[in-house]
């Protein structure tokens, strides 16, 4: 008894923000640094669309190409829901005209969200609660980034993915290692707008890093501390995932990590000693789309023949929470 990923599709909003656009706004914007070190040339921006709009479009794409009516669960990963309540997954069920005798829930995770989503799918299918799940990742972080925060505006992009997970005879989604450290909750945070701190029209402008500005209504990221967290924990995560699956590095055909930024990924690749040809690095046109980077990367790698049916692919997600997790899938 097992679970497989049947299909993945993604949807990116049509509006783009290029490095040249950012250079027009910020005279001190270093084009070559962002392209060469961060690895990003442009990012898609949901100016008019919401997270749910993106989710609807990615879901429609994947459902059109698969058996539409057999979905019996929706799992919806977002940190930028259209409403505090109701649950976005419920609205998506209606928009997609899916039947009503299905389960639907949202879960709030960022860059580890897809790996956690796979773990939830595996649990629901292994226990017989669901047979065919629509797993959605969708975020519009750019709506929460301050206009004067060139650092985060250069890193993040918007996007959504939809995956179909279903029962299969083989165990195509193997064992998971999931981790959490809430002591780092404030390393990546939107402080205001929840039940603890209301949105504040007069929230003070604050500066960080290289003349980046934000206020507490907006997204704030302590980049160096997130980098420290990553280089400390992800090498161990990879070892733990391999140990749990009784596999070694040589048995992994391809490694797909959360596409945070080129510098971080290259450092992890070097530290973990992953051969370059086995390591996915492609965020040039999409930037960091939070929980969507891993499923976008799986589809890119498959479409580009970097992975093929039967390959073992190690996935690792890490970020806001702090939360991190990994697993191995057989394509």
């Amino acid at each position, binding site marked *: 008894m097992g679970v497989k990923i049947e299909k993945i599709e993604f949807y990116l909003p049509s509006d783009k923000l290029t490095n040249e656009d950012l250079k027009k706004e910020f005279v001190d914007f270093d084009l070559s*640094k962002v392209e060469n*070190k961060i690895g990003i040339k442009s990012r898609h921006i949901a100016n008019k669309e919401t997270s749910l709009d993106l989710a609807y479009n990615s879901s429609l794409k994947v459902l059109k190409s698969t058996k539409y009516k057999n979905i019996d669960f929706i799992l919806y990963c977002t940190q930028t829901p259209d409403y505090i309540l109701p649950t976005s997954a419920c609205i998506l069920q209606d928009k997609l005209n899916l039947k009503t005798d299905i389960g639907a829930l949202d879960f709030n995770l960022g860059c580890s969200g897809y790996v956690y989503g796979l773990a939830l799918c595996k649990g629901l299918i292994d226990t017989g609660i669901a047979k065919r799940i629509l797993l959605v990742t969708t975020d519009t972080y750019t709506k929460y980034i301050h206009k004067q925060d060139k*650092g985060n505006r250069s890193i993040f992009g918007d996007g959504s993915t939809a995956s179909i997970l279903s029962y299969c005879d083989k165990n195509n989604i193997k064992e998971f290692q999931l981790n959490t450290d809430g002591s780092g909750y404030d390393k990546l945070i939107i402080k205001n707008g929840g039940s603890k701190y209301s949105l504040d029209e007069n929230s003070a402008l604050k500066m960080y*890093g*290289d003349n980046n500005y934000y206020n507490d209504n907006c997204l704030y990221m*302590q*980049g*160096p*501390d997130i*980098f*420290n967290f990553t*280089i*400390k924990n992800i090498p161990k995560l990879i070892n733990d995932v391999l140990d749990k699956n009784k596999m070694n590095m040589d048995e992994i055909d391809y490694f797909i990590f959360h596409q945070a930024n080129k*510098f*971080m990924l290259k*450092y992890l690749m070097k*530290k973990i000693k992953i051969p370059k040809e086995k390591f996915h690095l492609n965020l040039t046109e999409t930037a960091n789309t939070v929980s969507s980077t891993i499923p976008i990367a799986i589809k890119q790698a498959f479409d580009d023949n970097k992975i093929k049916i039967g390959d073992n692919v190690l996935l690792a997600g890490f970020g806001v929470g702090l939360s991190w997790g990994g697993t191995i899938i057989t394509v």
Partner: protein
Amino acid sequence: MNKKEFLIEIQDIMLLDNINETTAIEVDSMASLLLIAFLDEEFSTSISQEQIKSIKYVSDIIEFIGDENIK
């Protein structure tokens, strides 16, 4: 790593020429990431954002690592 090699590395990270221990430095966001990676790789130590903020001179990095760790 000896002190000469160390200074060359810091010079590359900070994009400066001919530095010594008394050279004043300003660690921008990219240099922060490079410095974190360098300290992790060469000295198996991590430096926080707050600690990076307090760096004003090359000697501050040497003090953080410990002079005895640079031959």
